[in-house]
């Protein structure tokens, strides 16, 4: 079947994609591995004729660097907090949406709305909601921010979420709320799609047998939905390890409240910082470590879901 004319044409059609992929995808992979293995590599020096030793110095440097470990801890913490919360919440909402008839489409549209937003722009809205407006005197605030106002209704004293002098866990809470809000639409969309694909006969059979609602949910809905759940969890872990722009949205490029910059920086943020200071060797090592983590977490997820997933 393979005739020469066809293969000549195929390569012609593919040529723009292949050229661009070679320059902007394939070469970077090779070059990143190379740079990461040249100790202390920086491009300015390389252009100026400096030579670098071959070795794993960049990796050991990065892994012993306190600031990198802080970024790694922030990233993992945000993942561990937001992935379960957003997944369970999305599952609840999807199951409820699937159980109603009137208004279903309207509510579905509302829940999808946060997806179609600019994450930096809406991050600024969240920042405003959590920020207190300082008054004329230090320590006194004109407005404590809408979130504190709402909490005040329940008798909770105003909390300094994101202003100068705010604590680490308060900052993490703000970012987590925003990440969960941002992550819901995609998950609800996928999970609802999965729920609507489940054959109604299973539920009818359960009803005839007099199975309780909880049992039906745990024994029918969750197993039949497990491929979708696995997909959602894997993609959100991958997204979580690449977290960056939601923090820029809330705290700006400083990645922390004023007076405490960089305290919330993430893996991706670390890579960009290293790039900005022309430390490409370290940036490459960090990027490869990030890739390694994502790869391993994905493998674990796949392994677990293979055991637990019913196809």
């Amino acid at each position, binding site marked *: 079947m393979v005739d020469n004319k066809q293969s000549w044409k195929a390569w012609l059609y593919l040529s723009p994609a292949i050229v661009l992929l070679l320059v902007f995808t394939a070469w*970077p992979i090779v070059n990143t591995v190379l740079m990461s293995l040249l100790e202390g590599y920086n491009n300015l020096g390389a252009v100026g004729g400096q030579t670098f030793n071959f070795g794993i110095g960049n990796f050991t440097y990065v892994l012993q660097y306190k600031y990198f470990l802080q970024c790694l801890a922030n990233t993992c913490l945000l993942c561990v907090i937001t992935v379960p919360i957003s997944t369970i919440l999305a599952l609840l909402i999807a199951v409820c949406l699937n159980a109603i008839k009137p208004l279903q489409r309207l509510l579905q549209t509302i829940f999808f709305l946060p997806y179609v937003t600019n994450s930096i722009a809406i991050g600024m809205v969240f920042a*405003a909601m959590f920020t207190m*407006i300082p008054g004329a005197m230090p320590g006194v605030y004109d407005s404590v921010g809408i979130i504190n106002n709402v909490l005040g209704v329940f008798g909770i004293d105003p909390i300094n979420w994101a202003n100068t002098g705010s604590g680490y866990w308060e900052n993490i809470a703000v970012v987590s709320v925003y990440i969960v809000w941002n992550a819901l639409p995609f998950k609800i969309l996928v999970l609802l799609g999965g729920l609507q694909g489940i054959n109604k006969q299973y539920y009818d059979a359960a009803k005839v047998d007099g199975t309780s609602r909880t049992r039906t949910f745990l024994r029918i809905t969750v197993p039949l939905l497990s491929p979708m759940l696995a997909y959602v969890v894997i993609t959100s872990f991958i997204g979580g390890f690449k977290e960056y722009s939601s923090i820029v949205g809330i705290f700006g490029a400083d990645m922390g409240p004023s007076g405490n910059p960089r305290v919330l920086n993430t893996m991706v943020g670390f890579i960009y910082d290293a790039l900005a200071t022309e430390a490409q060797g370290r940036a490459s090592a960090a990027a490869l470590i990030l890739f390694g983590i994502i790869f391993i977490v994905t493998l674990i997820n796949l392994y677990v879901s293979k055991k637990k997933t019913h196809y």
Partner: protein
Amino acid sequence: MSEKMINAEVASETEVKADSALTAMEQKDMQQVNAKDKVMKIVVQVLLYLFLGVMALIVLFPFYFMLISSLKTMDEYSLSVPTLFPEFIDWNNYVEVFQNEDLQLGRLFGNTMYVGIVSTLLSLVITVLSAFAFARLEFKGKNVLFAAMLGTMMIPGELFTITNYITVSQLGWKNTYTVLIVPFLVSVFYIYLLRQNFMQIPNELYLAAKVDGTSDLKYLWKVMIPLALPSLISITILKMMGAWNSYMWPNLVANDAAHRLITNGLRNAFTDAAGFTDIPVQMAAVALVSLPLFLVFVFLRKYIMKGVSRSGIKG
């Protein structure tokens, strides 16, 4: 519905078994169970709507907050007891956004639209040609090449950024439109999406067209593109949204006034040297930036949701 039917069936069965010996007591019991079921069902429905309603309000609240804040004066915004609706609707915030010389909103909009449109058009051409080659043509190494391309999807983009930053600097592309367009023209995911779509079109159509002497490009244009239009629309929207929302790469390589994109301009404006932020004006700017996305969503929701559920990637 089905529950009622089952109940009716059970009722009739009992009737047959017990013949006419069914006592009045038993009948009353059964009615009670039925009524209880109905009440339970209504309670569950009410709870469902309550939960969904509360969640929907939480999801919508940031948008509401953004809109009312953008219409308040800074004085009203700073009140210790917030107003749920502006006492005095102040459109000045919007005027200020347009007149802000540091921001130059018009320029940002223009740059972003230009980059978005050019990169979408070029990207569509490249994607269609590649997907066609993978879906319809036979050549050596096709499967290996396709697998290798799919493999790159696993790698986080930051890994490419480091080298690409060096490459574009050496090419002298920094602070140009080219640097915002060219490096991201090829998306393996879009090629994959379209290839799947193309493969659903029966090969006989292609062979028939060949017999008639139709050229490949004409066949693509007349048959395959119209049939794959929904996918192409999804790709277009996601690509445009990507340009509208991109932040990191533009911030790195083209953050000068002439080429700055909307998101980069937005994040750094409205805070003066002393750290004071005019939040109402900021919210007005955020609302203006969100408006086009909202309009796209209202009119093209179907295509966005279809594309998104298959990709899992934002933008």
